[in-house]
């Protein structure tokens, strides 16, 4: 097998791993924003989820307990966001920023206070993590040219959360476009007054969407802390929540393109890791920041001309208030 093919396979494999937290966060944002609630707090919810997962798994060495804790913590933060922006009709962006600041500070302080490792949670043993699953026949399939290698290197050997994230894409599509809840969710993000006059509760629908976003951010956080890594590290989300938002815009708030956007950004991340420190002829070393900025630049450039206008849900960011005119 050629070396180039092997490198591509490894890059794709690593892109999948890196795009999974983006995908969880992006789909979380999709539920929230399709219902009309801007979710700039994806980052914070993922971070608190990662911390809760790392801390719980270090005390109870069971990854599922870690995941549960991550989801609960993230949903709690989502409810705070929901209370501020739905019940109190506050500014959704300000509330989201507050979530991010709170999560960043809280995880650092609690981590330091509880574990005394400079904000980290203790290194997790393998039993407390989501481990990689080797799919059946992965080793024997290696003998088959091309497909066997793809199967063994790329498709097999991920944790259950990776497969979960991928399954979430068609599931989200189905929920959004084929179920009652999805119809109502899309309606409340476009015209909440139409939902209200149809005899439905705008508040309940928006809360349900925000809670869904909390659950998915919890999954994303747990993936970071107890699947990809072996414990929580201070600020380990490192802007993934914001890249996920960029991916959401890039995907025009649609689930299947969201997968593509997240994978693209994951791929850029993988490339950034790979070329770190590598010297290119004529250019020299490319600063890693330049690659890290690529997702944002790409979003701006592509939105500016190549993929057409990304129209957000009409009522996104607007608190619903029955006007009296």
């Amino acid at each position, binding site marked *: 097998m050629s070396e180039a093919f092997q490198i591509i396979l490894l890059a794709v494999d690593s892109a999948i791993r890196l795009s999974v937290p983006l995908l969880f966060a992006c789909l979380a944002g999709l539920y929230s924003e399709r219902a009309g609630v801007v979710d700039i707090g994806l980052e914070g919810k993922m971070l608190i989820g990662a911390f809760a997962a790392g801390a719980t798994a270090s005390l109870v060495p069971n990854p599922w307990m870690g995941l549960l804790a991550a989801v609960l913590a993230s949903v709690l933060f989502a409810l705070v966001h929901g209370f501020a922006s739905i019940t109190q009709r506050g500014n959704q962006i300000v509330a989201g920023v507050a979530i991010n600041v709170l999560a960043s500070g809280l995880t650092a302080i609690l981590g330091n206070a509880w574990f005394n490792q400079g904000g980290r949670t203790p290194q997790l043993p393998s039993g407390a993590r989501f481990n990689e699953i080797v799919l059946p026949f992965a080793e024997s399939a290696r003998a088959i040219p091309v497909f066997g290698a793809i199967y063994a290197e790329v498709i097999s050997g991920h944790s259950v959360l990776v497969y979960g994230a991928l399954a979430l894409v068609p599931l989200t599509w189905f929920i959004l476009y084929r*179920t009652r809840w999805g*119809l109502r969710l899309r*309606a409340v993000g*476009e015209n909440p007054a*139409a939902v*209200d*006059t*149809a*005899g*439905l509760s705008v508040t309940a629908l928006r809360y349900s969407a925000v809670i869904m976003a909390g659950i998915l951010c919890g999954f994303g956080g747990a993936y970071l802390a107890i699947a990809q890594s072996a414990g929580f590290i201070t600020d380990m989300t490192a802007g993934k929540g914001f890249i996920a938002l960029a991916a959401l815009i890039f995907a025009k708030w649609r689930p299947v393109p969201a997968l593509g956007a997240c994978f693209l950004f994951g791929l850029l991340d993988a490339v950034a890791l790979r070329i770190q420190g590598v010297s290119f002829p004529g250019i020299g070393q490319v600063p890693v920041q330049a690659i890290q900025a690529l997702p944002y630049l790409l979003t701006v450039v592509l939105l500016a001309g190549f993929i057409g206008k990304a129209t957000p849900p009409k009522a996104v960011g607007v608190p619903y208030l029955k006007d009296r005119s």
Partner: protein
Amino acid sequence: MIPPAIQMTGIDKRFGAVHANRAVDLTVTKGTVHGLIGENGAGKSTLMSILYGFYAADAGSIAINGKPSLIRTSADAIHSGIGMVHQHFMLVETFTVVENVMLGAEGGMFTARGAAAVRSKLLELSQAYGMDVDPDAVVSDLAVGELQRVEILKALVKGADILILDEPTAVLTPTEVDNLFVLLRRLASEGKTVIIVTHKLKEIMAVTDRVSVMRRGEMVGTVETAGTSPADLAELMVGRRVVLTVEKGPARPGEVVLAVEDLCVRDARGTLRLDHVSLSVKAGEIVGIAGVSGNGQSELLEAIAGIRKPSSGRVSLKGEALDCGGTDDPRTLRAKGLRHVPEDRHRMGLVKPFAAAESAMLGCSDEERFGKGLFLDRDLVMADCAAKMAAFDVRPADPGLRTALFSGGNQQKIVLAREIERDPQLLLIGQPTRGVDIGAIEFIHKRIIALRDAGKAILLVSTELDEVLALSDRVLVMCGGKITGERLPDQTNEQDMGLLMAGVTSEQPKEAA
């Protein structure tokens, strides 16, 4: 005896300091078309919103078909067989007709089965009532007339026996209005109950069996339509006799002040909104633009006023070519004697949280008379506003009061005072009396005619056909961004205008019809 379809007793509702409904009673007989009229802010929309469960009443009770019903939410109202067609349509623009109709009545966890059921019901109803609607059309692609049909079908599919329509005719051509009224009469004859909320007396006379009048939150009376007249109803609404007709002498047009040639405007998407429009307005003449709203009138006004850049065409003021939207922005145009009363005073004409005195000097704050250099002289600003208020009978005459606290009519008078008093050569007026009470309408019409008699050129846009016909010396009709015809107001009628508004251009000479 059949119990009344609706019996509302002692309905009371406050919004903060505003007492919107004061112990209102309303009884509507089954199988009738019932009119509800009143001026802006009389409380009719509030009352209907309470009936539909959109707001909860502070006090009072509602009985539907003789059964006491506790209606706290729209869901309760729908269960009681009440459907409402709101003035601003409650539709999700990105959805298809079927998706909109099924929202809230999906018939199960998954949408597939419900969609099929709704589709067949839609087809059945639209055939039965001759309302042609494509169930799979996306709502944002539909015209306003179709949107209204979707709203009515939405209520009927959900099984409404009582249909409330809030200002249903505001967006329709006269022909569409006639069709709507035929439909409403038919629904009533089939035993359904229809309530129509409007401020147009003529429509009340045309379609209702009985009419209830509200004034300042109170129900002032319910009369049989056959036994009343528009003048009587107006008196009930306002509380005094009002003159419904506009009195004006013949125009004495002078030289051409505004000349527009082949003006085209494209919107952000590149759609042609104004399609080669040519017109002229002479000194001492009111030229009216009639048409259903959204047919290019706004773009025409905004282009001439320098707010929107035309894609092609020429505009000249007193023979001087203008570069509207380019070097000629609203400020320089104002200096050249072009003044503009925008269609939507809340969006463009006023700043509602400002004091009246501040709203009354918007766009003029650079003028020396309000203060020198960087500073405004507060006393001068107040005095100027007080003078405007006196001249235009603005009530309350308090320049320090927040703009939002004035009634629609008084807000409009403030805008009008600001634009008229600086002696314009050309005045553009959009929707001069939208959301304005009858008493103020009378006053505003008189001022516009006085301005014409003072030799000024006036271009007037209104979607109220009666208003255009009453005020204008010449009427142009717009449809789809084009001018579809020109008529003299005393040589046309509603049918003729209706055809032009619908875009049917017959090569009729001016003196016909």
